[in-house]
């Protein structure tokens, strides 16, 4: 049994409210959620249950109203705004449902954006992005604008953008929702093959039950809480931690 590593994400009693007084809405009602390094964790649940809010809070894009979020043992809530941005830039990668590629940049340039944001020289950044895109099967479309790419190709570029700076945590929001089944499968295949890494955790928010078989763990969410966590696959690096499979309410 390998040495126990620090969890990538650890949420405890996490709460998030929107609005105040009579119009206040509690979206997260004491979420306890863990995601481990080397695992592909799915976050599933009905629309409006708070999945997107949860990954927004985990990513530091929204402030929590209470509770605690730790990423790699770092309490993100205690970081100053600027430190949080720098932490996010270094440690997090994103894959969005609508890709959110910059329409004026080529595929390679889009994939290089996180490196450019970290002040890496342009040529170096684009070169690295190109190599990664080649790995993802995009060698023919490196200099193509997003408008000329199919949905699946755009999502591959988004995946390259999420991976290019080698982050420790990748957050994917409905990465297959805008894709047909075959393309969605292909994207998930690439995600599982390229994103999952012993020192990296991947969290995927999805409704798409057809891709559940890629998950190492699935956290079910409902009404602002994690209602069930289940392990789906067992990786070679680590045996399942059955304590983590306990239902949290």
């Amino acid at each position, binding site marked *: 049994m390998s040495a126990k590593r620090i969890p990538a994400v650890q949420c405890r009693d996490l709460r998030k409210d929107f609005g105040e007084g009579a119009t206040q809405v509690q979206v997260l009602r004491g979420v306890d959620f863990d995601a481990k390094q080397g695992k592909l964790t799915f976050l599933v649940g009905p629309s409006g249950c708070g999945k*997107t809010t949860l*990954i*927004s809070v985990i*990513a530091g*894009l*929204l402030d929590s109203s209470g509770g605690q979020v730790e990423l790699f043992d770092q309490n993100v809530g205690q970081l100053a705004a*600027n430190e949080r*941005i*720098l932490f*996010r*830039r*270094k440690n*997090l990668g*994103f894959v*969005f*449902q*609508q890709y*959110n590629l*910059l*329409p*004026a*940049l080529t595929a390679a*340039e889009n994939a290089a*954006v*996180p490196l*450019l*944001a*970290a002040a890496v020289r*342009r040529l170096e950044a684009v070169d690295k992005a190109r190599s990664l895109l080649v790995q993802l099967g995009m060698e023919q479309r490196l200099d193509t604008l997003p408008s000329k790419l199919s949905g699946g190709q755009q999502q591959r570029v988004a995946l390259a*953008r999420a991976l290019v700076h080698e982050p420790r945590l990748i957050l994917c*929001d*409905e990465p297959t*929702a*805008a894709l047909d089944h075959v393309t969605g499968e292909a994207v998930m295949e690439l995600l599982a093959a390229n994103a999952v890494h012993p020192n990296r955790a991947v969290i995927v928010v999805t409704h798409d039950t057809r891709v559940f078989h890629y998950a190492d763990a699935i956290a079910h969410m409902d009404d602002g809480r994690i209602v069930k966590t289940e392990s789906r696959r067992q990786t070679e690096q680590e045996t399942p931690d059955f304590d983590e499979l306990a239902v949290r309410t």
Partner: protein
Amino acid sequence: MNFVALKMLTGDRAKYLGLIFTIAFCTFLLQNQTSIFAGILKRTGSQIGDVTDAEIWVMDHPKTEYFEQTKALKDTDLNRVRGVQGVEWAVKLFKGSPVARTLGGKFAVSFCLGLDDASLTGAPRKMLLGSWERLREPDAVVIDQAGYLLLFPGEPLRLDQTIELNDHKANIVGISDASAPFVSWPVMHTRYSQAVNFVGRERTQLSYVLVRPQPSVAAKELCRRIEAQTGLRARTSNQFRWDCIRYYLKNTGIPVNFGITITIALIVGVVVAGQTFYLFTVENLKQFGAIKAIGVTNWRLIGMILLQAFTVGIIGFSIGTGMAAEFFNFFGQKLATRGIILLWQSVALTGGCMVFVMVFASILSLRRVLVLEPAIVFRG
């Protein structure tokens, strides 16, 4: 990220070109109107500037307010001015407006400047044809090129043409390059004694006394002494030109007309450029959200937006200034618009206005980007 900012800007061709077009035309219009405005006002004192021999103009106080409206002085005033300590010399100058008529029947009201018979002080120094020294000949006049072409349209410049000035025969002995007056009348130079004959004898004729101070005396100081000693009004050439400009600013609709055009150009520039840039940002909000989520700081985003704004601003301003320069280069060669040039002050003023336009446009856009929740990127 500067590269990303510039690619985002140029990627939306329609808005990018629209912004440049707006800034360029706003710049052109502002530089064009302010330079023409200044050029026209400068013309109100053209004939003052053409007199390079004397530094001080003495005139009636308080009736002579600007060059074209003169109340005649008494002939004895000349000697009173000469008696002021610090005066190197003082000579008389007459200004009248006789009607010039050619033998072919073409006629025009003209400016007639009568120069001191002995010294010919105030004679045009820039001659295109002939010589101002020939003004000593009987009936001699020097006419400016524009006036000549007005009276002799289509004819080549030629000396010894005969014209009538208020029914008195006059012989053109020279064609000058006198500065364009405020109204497009011919500018005639002749001797004082002859000019008063052309215009018709009145009880008093002396329009101005032109004075040169002694080298050791400052012009402004001498003006003060002349005013104190004679009760007349004495102005340096520069002061008198500004008096003319102020008179026209105060008493004509010129500033209002130009002011309206300049204001509208500025408003249209601000509104169109601001709105286009704002729309450009709003349409890219999701992209900015993604960039923010990826980990770009607000300061970097401010830098990106300012870079975008100032890139279109500088390109548009350069194109507009080039257009204005070409405009004035072309029309500066026309007689009617000679002397109206693109002023560096106008370029600087317009540059300032364009900085205001782009800062305004940036602030509108920045507000949206800075308050943008990066979590927007997770909304489908």
